């Protein structure tokens, strides 16, 4: 037991952001978190090289990881935005990605066209779905305990994936491209669909960033994130901001779902594994820090793939979980610091 935050003059805010005392131990390990992270990545690369004994395998892991990370970034930015503004730990985020997968499947099959035409449908559809959920359900619990919000979003997650199961059955579906050639990058190969997913995810992520940083509505969102009361006092419609923010967050998940649909087996629970991935990215980037999520998504993608090579025989996700627990324990504010977007 080291430093405690019990000073009466500085009572931790309850129900809102999670106040925590920084300990000296933590400070020592977190002195230059960005350096530590890069050291970790280099260490993992070396481990992967030693383990596989092949630059080709390691190079492939680097490319695959980086490319997968782009989608994680987009997904996690939505999750982080929701946490930063609404203080909701949205456990249904993976399920929203699942909805994006099925939207893509439906659009591609109904029209018989290229799956990518589903992108605007997924974005708008998921925005509306998220906005409605916030409007009808979550706006009623503003300021509730984190656990209560967690329970509601857990219920939503179960609800969504099982409605999908009821509607589409449990058999795996696909929304493949008619042709998906390999693209060569520095001797490694990636499918075109993955490269497109990476590029499109980054473009959308940057658009979201611009929306938050450069528009008046983005300013309103950031004002609400900084202080709910303050924003209300200067005439911002806080509830509207909540509705739009949740919609934007779920639209990110929907877009991520659409982008991975061409190379993903579509099942009602396909979104589940992305849930924890998104949380890892969000905590790593700093809960509520949207820019942090952008960078951390790429890091997590790399850790997953390099770890998969380095700890052969185990699931690539294992390395991600280990990283997650380490961050939770040593630097819960994330490598870029938790803050409002």
């Amino acid at each position, binding site marked *: 037991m080291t430093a405690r935050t019990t000073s009466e003059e500085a009572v931790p805010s309850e129900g809102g952001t999670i106040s925590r005392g920084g300990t000296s131990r933590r400070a020592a390990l977190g002195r230059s978190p960005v350096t530590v992270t890069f050291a970790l990545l280099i260490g993992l690369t070396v481990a992967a090289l030693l383990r596989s004994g092949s630059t080709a395998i390691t190079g492939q892991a680097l490319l695959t990881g980086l490319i997968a990370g782009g989608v994680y970034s987009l997904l996690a930015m939505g999750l982080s935005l929701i946490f930063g503004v609404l203080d909701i730990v949205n456990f249904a985020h993976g399920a929203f990605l699942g909805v994006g997968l099925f939207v893509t499947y439906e659009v591609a099959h109904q029209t018989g066209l290229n799956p990518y035409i589903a992108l605007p449908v997924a974005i708008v559809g998921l925005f509306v779905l998220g906005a409605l959920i916030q409007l009808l359900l979550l706006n009623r619990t503003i300021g509730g305990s984190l656990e209560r919000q967690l329970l509601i979003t857990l219920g939503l997650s179960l*609800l969504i994936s099982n409605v999908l199961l009821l509607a589409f059955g449990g058999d795996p579906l696909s929304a493949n491209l008619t042709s998906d050639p390999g693209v060569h990058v520095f001797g490694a190969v990636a499918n075109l669909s993955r490269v497109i997913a990476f590029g499109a995810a980054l473009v959308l992520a940057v658009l979201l960033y611009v929306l938050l940083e450069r528009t008046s509505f983005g300013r309103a969102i950031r004002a609400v994130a900084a202080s709910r009361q303050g924003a209300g006092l200067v005439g911002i419609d806080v509830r509207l901001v909540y509705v739009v923010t949740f919609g934007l967050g779920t639209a990110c998940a929907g877009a991520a779902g659409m982008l991975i649909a061409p190379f993903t087996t579509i099942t009602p629970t396909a979104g589940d594994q992305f849930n924890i991935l998104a949380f890892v990215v969000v905590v790593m980037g700093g809960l509520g820090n949207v820019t942090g999520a952008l960078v951390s998504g790429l890091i997590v993608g790399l850790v997953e793939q390099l770890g998969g090579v380095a700890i052969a025989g*185990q699931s690539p996700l294992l390395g991600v979980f280990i990283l997650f627990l380490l961050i939770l324990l040593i630097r819960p504010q994330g490598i870029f610091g938790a803050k409002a977007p």
Partner: protein
Amino acid sequence: MTTTTAPPAPTPAPTRERAQSLKRSLLILVAIAAVAACAPFVLPESRQSIAIRVLIFAMMAIGWNLMSGYGGMFSFGHAAYFGIGAYTDTYLLVTFGWSPWLALVVGAALAALVAAGIGYVAFRYKLRSAYFALGTFAIAEMLRLLATNTKWVNGTTGYHVPLLPESSWTMLQFGANAAEYFYIGLAMVVVCMVVTLLYLRSRSGIYTVAIRDNEDAADALGISVMRVRLTTMALSAAITAAAGMFYAQYYTFVDPDTAFGSAQSVQAIAPAVIGGVATPWGPLVGALILGPLADLTVTWLRTPPAFLDFLTGRSGLDVVLYAILLIVIALVLPKGIVGSIQEWWKRR
């Protein structure tokens, strides 16, 4: 010490009252068990699985409620303890031919140890609230991945309990749908309830609630916060591990997903939340509601009404219903069914 300022008030006899409240709880428990004991006579044999499901849900939720309801430590990873119970049982049984009863002791102890380890690290690093929940979730998922990829626990295949030619109490194995399963499960639920009720009245149990209500005040009064929390977590894990062992024996099969899957964590949370978090009877009520849902909806979807024809033979409706129930309860009855009734009774 005497005083002149105390207004004359009817002084209740707290000692007797407390003893009575324990006695009353135990009497209610006996009554519930007596009614439940009639189930095998009422339920058709083919429906016995419903009753068993209720019992398993109840045990898991009793365990979760102790740590997360009374203790305020929101676990999102009780699948870890459930899975440890199930795997210890099947591993020792398949590999060494151990009796499940012996394996239960080992599994519960192991789960308790793991829980205490997790708790120690988590509280030493001041993991709280959502961070704690996410951390426990990650640990359960890690165990699932490890079990999936580890050969000496049979990887993705998991274990089948070797079937015996005849019934055996020692090996906890009976014919399909034998009433013995139900009575053993019922007895285990009763034991878990008695242990919980006694624990909540013990020094450690009282401290557990005190720490949940205000950690700093508890610490300042001389309560060793860490020790009490770890004790509560260990007991909670042991109870959940017992549920895992019973599950493995009844279904005679475990694999990484059925043991450590996040669905198991949810099944420990949902009955407690729906029935009433931090109420003694909440987990039982919640289990009674959620247990039958799966079988009822499957039956119903076999021949659905005309307008729902397209759902014929589909699955998922049970979880849809309980997800809705979970959301509605969290939205409008945060104290759950039992908690809300209790409150209404007090205000009457």
